[in-house]
């Protein structure tokens, strides 16, 4: 197979600034040269290439929109989107790692943290010296986090946390966990440090999706957290939800990256694979699939760019982000399934990328609000009537 060639049917490259294109190309090159050679091995072994976190920090992908004074690069949201796209072109696990670090841990510290918390955590997280995770989901509460059972009770100057979180990306390898817990006054966020007594983060194994990503349970048994490690600005469930809006924005771009990878692989494969004496690409059935996929990907590209420009103008709404987390992931999953099919038996081999992306996207369509939950969010926006329960 030749090097990755990105579909740009509507010449959208013209719409990006030189700097945005440089960002994209820098990440694309790194992913191609450094990440792709070993991703299939990691996927098979069920490991994340943790040895690359330093390099990722040097590249600057952790919290790139964080201001420079806290160790970020002060980039715009379109650049962040392009970063997510290129990372997920490699693997959804890689993008997840970066989404969690930047959007789910650095973002709440920046938005809701004290000055001391920002100074302590943001620079070391930007460089990759410290890894963070975000604990919202529980065994019994996923789509409805408002029902969470994890509690935080005041004890003098401290808080005592009890509960369990599930499906927490990076839990096992994190130095800090943003844990959301119910207090007498509603939901609050806490920075729980690795090694705190009563806190552990065992890894959840046996996944068939997002295998090159670490997923963990967080166990909290009488965990004592000082008031200084509570996020002072985070009041109520809207705080964790605002983090999810940041991450979902990146996912809308990321999913397109996975779709672009699958499409390019299938297009190249169809051009080379001879069936019944001519290339697969020369058959009408294959061309219809390619035409449909290229159209879906192009529409996703147009939408994410608009979303990014709105975000940079400070005008994007959570409901708009919902629409394209939902659409772009759904379309990417469909594209990956069709591409998987077009590669025949090779499509299930880890020597190709389509099967890996297809498995990964099953997680991406579930986390950060399932497809159906975003359907309800859009419905709510359109009708004004919440239909979640």
């Amino acid at each position, binding site marked *: 197979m*030749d*090097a990755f*060639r990105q579909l740009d049917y509507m010449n959208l490259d013209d719409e990006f600034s*030189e*700097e945005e*294109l*440089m*960002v994209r*190309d*820098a990440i694309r*090159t*790194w992913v191609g040269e450094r990440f792709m050679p070993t991703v299939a091995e990691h996927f098979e072994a069920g490991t994340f290439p943790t040895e690359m976190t330093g390099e990722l920090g*040097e*590249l*600057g*992908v952790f919290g*790139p929109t964080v201001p*420079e004074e806290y160790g970020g*690069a*002060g*980039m715009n949201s379109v*650049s962040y989107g392009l*970063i997510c796209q290129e990372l997920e072109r490699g693997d959804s696990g890689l993008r997840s790692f970066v989404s969690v670090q930047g959007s789910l841990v650095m973002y709440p510290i920046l938005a809701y943290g004290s000055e001391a918390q920002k100074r302590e955590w943001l620079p070391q997280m930007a460089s990759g010296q410290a890894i963070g995770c975000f604990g919202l989901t529980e065994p019994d509460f996923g789509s409805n986090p408002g029902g969470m059972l994890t509690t935080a009770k005041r004890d003098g100057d401290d808080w005592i946390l009890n509960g369990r979180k599930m499906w927490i990306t990076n839990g096992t390898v994190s130095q800090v966990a943003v844990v959301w817990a119910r207090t007498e006054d509603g939901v609050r966020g806490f920075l729980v440090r690795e090694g705190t007594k009563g806190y552990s983060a065992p890894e959840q194994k046996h996944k068939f999706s997002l295998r090159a990503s670490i997923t963990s349970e967080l166990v909290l048994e009488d965990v004592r957290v000082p008031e200084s490690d509570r996020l002072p600005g985070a009041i109520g469930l809207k705080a964790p939800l605002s983090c999810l809006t940041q991450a979902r924005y990146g996912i809308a771009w990321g999913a397109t990256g996975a779709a672009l990878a699958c499409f390019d692989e299938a297009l190249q494969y169809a051009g080379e694979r001879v069936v019944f004496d001519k290339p697969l690409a020369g058959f009408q059935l294959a061309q219809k699939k390619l035409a449909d996929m290229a159209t879906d990907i192009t529409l996703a590209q147009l939408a994410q760019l608009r979303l990014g420009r709105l975000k940079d103008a400070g005008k994007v709404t959570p409901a708009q982000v919902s629409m394209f987390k939902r659409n772009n992931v759904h379309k990417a999953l469909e594209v990956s399934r069709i591409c998987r099919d077009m590669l025949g038996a090779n499509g299930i081999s880890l020597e190709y990328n389509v099967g890996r992306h297809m498995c990964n996207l099953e997680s991406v369509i579930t986390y950060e609000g399932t497809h159906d939950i975003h359907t309800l969010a859009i419905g709510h926006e359109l009708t004004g009537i919440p239909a979640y329960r």
Partner: protein
Amino acid sequence: MNIVACIKRVPMTETQAKVTADGQSLDTSGVEYMTSFYDEIAVEEAVKTKEKLGGEVTVLTIGPSDATKQIRECLAKGSDKGIILTDDAWALRDCRSTAKALAAKVQELGGEVVFAGRQATDRDNASVGPMLATYLGWACVTDVIELELEADKGVAKRESEAGVETYEFSLPAVITCQKDLNEPRYAGLKGIMAAKKKPVEEVPAAEEASQAEVVRVELPPARKEGRVVGEGPDAVEALMTALQTEAKVL
């Protein structure tokens, strides 16, 4: 140290070359560009030299204004300023007129060492570097794979047919860079942000008529399809015969 890195914008390695209708050049429509592979090594060596000896790295190119993207990438990787010697007909310049224009600028900048790629990956002439040294009247070591620079002299290793040669030279000098000299760094996002604030200047390239001109470009003939000469142990004999009598390589 006043360090200059010369780069050329070339078509992406994956570009499928097409010849224009007049048969004199390659069709550039739809072509995407990158910094020539060996020039990236030159830029890396320039930045490493600055990191060791101090000073400033200027990235210099002759080309169209839209080479700014490549220049900015070099700035993102640690160079300090960029200069594009603009010339609409830059692609038609021969190596000598290119070298002469570069030499004039290097002189004006007060450069003390120039790094260039061993060759540009589009034309593969491998002559601009040595010609530049000639115009400047400087020392020149080509195809360098190892380099130790000090304030006024240096030691360079280069690979030749005969083996690895070690040169001692005095500065100023032109060094052309071979593959193994270093591993170019990636542009980080902070570097990209910093690059925005670094100066990129466009000035017309010194006029200089070319003495050599490309009159015809032909793509290499398509490779003939392969042939299976036999299967299993029988193949050995058939292959030997084919290699001896047809390919005449044994």
